[in-house]
């Protein structure tokens, strides 16, 4: 299933004119506040009616102003996860979870309640009321409630923004699971670099009401010209399958035929991981380095280079494992005579790959 959105809307001297597609997986609608993210998600949900546009999930048209189709909110079959959990205070957790399910068609596909409750770890909360839940628990129940409505698409409007850092770290993995388990598109509004890096499979970057860039996260995050998360936090993501857990505490992975060593991860062998490699943790070398303590060396060729005003530069490297992004100085760039097409090696310290940058991948 794919969500396709095309809409135009103006309000208060601000014009929104965008078009994008959200395939299955998690599409992060990324941009600063005021870029139009929330307007887009509210138009998709039907809480806001855009001046013109068309919104559809595969063949199901939710809105088409030209054809005078405008499905009311309650018939769009969405799962909307709000920033404030918006649980019904007069209902128990169980009743909250059952609310959307009650209105969903029986035949609609979706995860079973038991599975959702287990996935979100909310089994012990079922008889409690929202007033007795912590912030993180509320978030999890809100995710479950949206999911159990058997939606065609999931919408999340900065679901972590209201939580403190510890709660964010607690909830983020649930969104990773969600991304990897549900087969429907998830449209996730965020302005957080961490969330983009950890969660996105597709990125739609908005700027002043326009789509600045859109595409698979793998490509966009490794594009030196883009860096939606800022130069400092730039980093590419790779997929790698766990080959073996070694007795010395390392986990060996296979990334496009290349071995990759990581500090021990919890997932079992055979599992595919999504690994984020920060650009500033990558060293480039023209010759294959030897006698080096760093364990991970990926051969490749320079794909693109971006130099800015300052002393730094970003280089993307096409390797068998995928695109890798490296941050280095312009001085090194000149000394190594790097240009697109130059063969090169990316060197990464094993311990530099932070455990929180590793998660399951779809």
């Amino acid at each position, binding site marked *: 299933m794919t969500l396709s959105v095309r809409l135009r809307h103006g309000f208060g001297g601000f014009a929104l004119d965008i078009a994008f597609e959200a395939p299955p997986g998690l599409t992060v609608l990324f941009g600063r506040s005021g870029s139009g993210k929330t307007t887009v998600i509210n138009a998709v949900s039907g809480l806001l009616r855009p001046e013109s546009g068309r919104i559809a999930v595969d063949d199901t048209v939710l809105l088409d102003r030209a054809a005078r189709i405008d499905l009311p909110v*309650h018939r769009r079959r969405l799962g*909307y996860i709000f920033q404030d959990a*918006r649980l019904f205070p007069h209902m128990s957790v169980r009743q909250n979870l059952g609310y959307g399910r009650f209105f969903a068609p029986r035949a609609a596909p979706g995860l079973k309640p038991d599975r959702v409750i287990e996935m979100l770890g909310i089994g012990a909360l079922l008889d409690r009321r929202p007033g007795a839940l912590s912030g993180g628990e509320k978030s999890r129940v809100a995710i479950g409630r949206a999911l159990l409505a058997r939606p065609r698409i999931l919408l999340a409007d900065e679901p972590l923004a209201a939580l403190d850092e510890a709660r964010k770290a607690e909830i983020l993995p649930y969104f990773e699971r969600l991304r990897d388990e549900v087969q429907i598109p998830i449209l996730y509004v965020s302005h957080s670099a961490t969330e983009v890096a950890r969660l996105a499979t597709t990125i739609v970057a908005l700027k002043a009401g326009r789509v600045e860039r859109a595409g698979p996260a793998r490509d966009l995050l490794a594009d030196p010209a883009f860096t939606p998360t800022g130069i400092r936090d730039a980093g590419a993501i790779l997929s790698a399958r766990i080959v073996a857990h070694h007795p010395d505490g390392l986990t060996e992975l296979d990334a496009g035929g290349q071995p990759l060593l990581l500090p021990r991860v919890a997932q079992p062998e055979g599992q595919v991981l999504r690994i984020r490699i920060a650009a500033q943790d990558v060293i480039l070398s023209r010759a294959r380095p030897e006698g080096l303590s760093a364990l991970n060396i990926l051969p490749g060729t320079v794909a693109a280079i971006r130099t800015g005003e300052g002393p730094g530069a970003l280089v993307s490297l096409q390797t068998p494992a995928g695109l890798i992004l490296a941050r280095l100085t312009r001085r090194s760039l000149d000394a190594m005579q790097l240009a697109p097409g130059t063969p090169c090696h990316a060197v990464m310290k094993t311990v530099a790959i932070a455990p929180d940058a590793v998660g399951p991948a779809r």
Partner: protein
Amino acid sequence: MTGWLGPQEWQAVALSLKVSSLATLVSLPLGLLVAYALARWRFPGRQLLNGIVHLPLILPPVVTGYLLLLSMGTQGPVGSLLKEAGIIFAFRWTGAALAAGTMAFPLMVRAIRLSIEAVDPKLEQAALTLGAPRPLVFATVTLPLILPGIIAGAILAFAKAMGEFGATITFVSNIPGQTQTLPSAIYSFLQIPGQEGAALKLVCISVAIAMTALLASEVLAQRIAKRVAGR
């Protein structure tokens, strides 16, 4: 009870309870609708509706009663139509209920409206996104959350109806056994020398009923508020 109270006094108490109950029950759905409209809908004439609803609160009750007599009396434009349909308000106990309901209406609307305004519309939006049609959103989310306000409004209206005097006596007069409510009866007894004792008994009953209603509403509202607060 009948030994302590004379038949006329007993009639007045029973009639007042009947009149106030009818006034409260009938005006409740209308009060809910008006309160919801004033709290949530933006429509032309909203301020006008607000003004009309509050009019009985600021007009002298005698004026409200006279206006009711003019419009709803058997000769009045509305009253004559209703008379053909077999509904007569003037000088009947139903007319006393109409007068009491009219006077109590603004208090009821205010209490319910405040509770509706306290409900976060975002909760209703959330219910919509979960697939609930509007009427069911109201029934399953809004209504349970405003129940304390509805109870408070109903009790307030009931108490106001019990005490209504000016509009009632103007609209339906003071006929023992027909339209003589508690306050009218107290007034009548006070007009006759030597009847202060009977008046005082009715005053005590009046106070007791009002206090009981108030306490009952407090207990109920607290219990519901606890449930609604989600703990």
